[in-house]
């Protein structure tokens, strides 16, 4: 029992150490500007712009459902304009960053892991090295950078779309006026709400893209290995999003109370 526990702890420490080593290699790759700038814009388009449709779709439905849920929860207890309060707080602080993050963990994490995994098992990564390219600078840095920069942009736009569709549902279904909705949204609004959501999203983007790169570049054993890498990337990314969400809530959110 103790031996098994010791082996488990040792494996976890080793895994953590190898992730740290990988992140260190990626950080070193940043200095090779000439190599990673070539791919950075392309990755931003692929990981960010191409993810907009799924992000905005989720946001639209989230906005509508939240308005209706708020109406259900608040009926008879508090003024209806509190629908706006609830919408603004939940959309900016929690739901849009986390729901969009989880959706992008599937799309972006699996995409990166499958692409880099295929490159690994078909010796394309070895070929890069023989051509004197640093794979961390050429493959990892542009993807992690794109994830970190583009997640907040997708989430920011999703916040706006969720709020808009929440407003439409509040007017059309709940029966609020525009003035009441605006009053609710502005009542407890703070600039911090948006900053918190965006910074949190950036941390999600960093984690998802880094995990995708780690899973992909460590893929072994052909198609099965690539499939396993993609699955690992999605699962670990989703878990990491929830862990980071709790981390930010326990630290930054508590500090500004």
């Amino acid at each position, binding site marked *: 029992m103790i031996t098994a526990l010791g082996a488990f702890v040792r494996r976890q420490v080793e895994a953590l150490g190898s992730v740290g080593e990988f992140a260190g290699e990626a950080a070193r790759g940043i200095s090779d500007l000439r*190599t990673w700038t070539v791919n950075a814009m392309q990755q931003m388009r692929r990981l960010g712009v191409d993810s907009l449709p799924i992000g905005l779709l989720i946001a639209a439905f989230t906005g509508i459902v939240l308005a209706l849920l708020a109406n259900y929860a608040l009926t008879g207890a508090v003024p209806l304009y509190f629908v706006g309060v609830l919408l603004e707080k939940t959309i900016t602080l929690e739901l849009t960053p986390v729901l969009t993050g989880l959706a992008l963990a599937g799309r972006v994490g699996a995409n990166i892991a499958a692409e880099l995994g295929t490159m690994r098992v078909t010796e*394309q990564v*070895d*070929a890069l090295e*023989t051509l*004197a*390219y640093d794979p961390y600078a050429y493959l990892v840095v542009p993807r992690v950078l794109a994830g970190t920069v583009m997640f907040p942009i997708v989430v920011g736009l999703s916040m706006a779309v969720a709020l808009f569709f929440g407003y439409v549902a509040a007017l059309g279904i709940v029966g609020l006026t525009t003035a009441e909705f605006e009053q609710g949204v502005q009542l407890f609004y703070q600039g911090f709400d948006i900053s918190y959501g965006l910074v949190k999203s950036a941390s999600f983007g960093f984690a998802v893209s880094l995990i995708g790169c780690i899973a992909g570049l460590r893929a072994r054993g052909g198609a099965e290995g690539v499939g396993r890498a993609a699955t690992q990337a999605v699962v670990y990314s989703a878990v990491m999003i929830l862990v980071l969400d709790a981390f930010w809530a326990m630290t930054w959110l508590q500090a500004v109370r």
Partner: protein
Amino acid sequence: MIRLDNISKAFGDKVVLRGFSMDVKEGETVALIGYSGSGKSVAIKHIVGLLEPDAGTVFVDGKEVPQLTRKELYALRSKIGYVFQFAALFDSLTIGENVGMGLRKQGTLDEAGIAERVGEALALVDLPGVEQRYPAELSGGMRKRVGIARAIALRPKYILYDEPTTGLDPVTSAVIDELMIRMQQQLGVTGVVITHDMRSAYRVATRIAMLYEGSVRQMGTVAEIQHTTDPVVRQFIEGRATLEEDGAEAPRGAGGRA
């Protein structure tokens, strides 16, 4: 000069190389032969630092590869062309971009110079005008030739060919053989060729080494290998199913394969 000195390499419990030693002199082409899975690719990956030996060391141009800093290793790699067994072309790039990739990294030529060099390299492998196509649009043999073009575009001092003619038709194989001979005789390129094709090995190689059970079983000139009395080497070069010519001996055991 390339020198692999007493290399041992294992992946987990699987020991692939056990005291593998081989030297490749300036301007010669050494053919490395051996059974599938015997560790030939593993051996040559040590030359470019893609793998680090568990024991032993590798010298290229007098530099000890495992001891090089990252910068020194990249500088060394720019002098070595590597032709991968399955070409290892970058799927998302055009053929022109694939072949010019190493040149772009070197940064010594402008775009026009790179395009010219890419065209020359593709013409050398009988593939002119395919610059705008993608790897998925080419046959396996064509992709293999593009892999060779990518290696020779750098005008390297050394080229490592990992089964360059496997899977190609006899005529294309002969074209690749001619290209390897020309690289050696006209440009003085030092080469290591992994091959199972003995006819190709006899044509292109100045010396032949056979890898068996993790180390070099025999290394010698083409004539020496052709007239060897070592039964294991004879079985391999003659492509016999049994160790002895009369077939009395059992077939080669799996123990020879790593």
